[in-house]
């Protein structure tokens, strides 16, 4: 190798090295309505499918934003597909969102609303939250 800068050699463009190219950028908004979770239920579940020409095996780097009543917009990393939202307004629930591709053209977002184990035994209702997921898909070998 002729590159004399050892540190830069780990990062710089070169056809001698493998890189991951971008393929698609996409955004999807999911609104999760208020959900009542009964005393004997720990988790409520839903999903939404998104049709995208996403290349097989693609890697995603993502940001998720959420907003609700009396909740300012917050953004978090959706790292490798999962998110756990921890916020001070949440005393009884947490939300988790996962993404995965279900076929050649569609990506599915699963969301879970999970009751904290130490909450009261009566039925409780979640607030409504709107999640906007910004996905950047990286090309993978096909």
């Amino acid at each position, binding site marked *: 190798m002729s590159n004399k800068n050892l540190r830069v050699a780990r990062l710089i463009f070169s056809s001698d090295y*493998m890189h991951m190219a971008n393929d698609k950028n996409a955004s999807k908004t999911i609104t999760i309505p208020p959900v009542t979770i009964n005393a004997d239920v720990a988790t409520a579940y839903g999903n939404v499918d998104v049709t995208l020409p996403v290349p097989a095996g693609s890697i995603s780097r993502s940001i998720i934003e959420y907003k609700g009543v009396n909740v300012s917009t917050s953004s978090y*990393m959706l790292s*490798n597909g*999962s998110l756990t939202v921890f916020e001070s307004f949440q005393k009884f629930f947490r939300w*988790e969102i996962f993404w995965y591709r279900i076929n050649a053209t569609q990506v599915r977002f699963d969301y879970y609303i999970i009751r904290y184990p130490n909450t009261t035994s009566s039925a409780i209702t979640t607030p409504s939250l709107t999640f906007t997921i910004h996905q950047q898909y990286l090309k993978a070998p096909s």
Partner: protein
Amino acid sequence: MSRLATIDHFIFDSDFPADMITYYKTDSFTIPANGTGTKTYNHALGYAPLCFGVWATAQDFSNSRPLSDGYFSTIVSSTTSQVKLEYDFGAKGTPTNIYLRIYGYPPSTYTGFCPATAQSSKPLILNTDDNYSPLIFEGAFTTKTNSSVSTLKTVEYNVTDFYQKQTDTANHLTIYHSLPYRPRVMLWSTINGTTKPASSATFDYWSGAATTRYPSCSFYDGGIAIPLGSGYSGEDIITTHVRVYA
């Protein structure tokens, strides 16, 4: 600094570095009946790569999930000698066979030379038909140096057009930038010599353990806030690895 006034309108400029993949592993195997197992792959990179990847039940990856996905327990981790996949499909429906792709970046803590990797798959080779995300920030922050003392290593970066400055306070890293949008971030944690993606925190939560050993990331206009992991007693060295992409 580039002499072109609108250099950001173009790609392939050494002002805009891109990550390179120094570890790439494909595999396929049969899942045992109990849905649980471990695969290890030896390597001689000289460092623990920052791994990520996907697994699929379809050979062409027409369906796939990220590794360290929080729903299925598929944790990818690395040490200086091995890359490991620990999976536990358990009660969630065991697939019969899975196909695996693992990718890895060199960590910022490694200052040695990385040899050429171009002999691997064609879609990963630089192509001017493709777009590449500039890497605008990379770093590694050691937040704990022994089992009883939590310290934060101060790291200085040059100010550029993209990132204005980064500051750190106790167990917290803030990266200020001038981008008109919120950039992408990738995070990993090294705990006692093993490096895992930050999303592995979900498994710790489900197992009843605290997740403070893993970094998370929140965004606001002009900045990124990353609370850095502080770990448990007995965990001697915790390092957070950060990559930010425009």
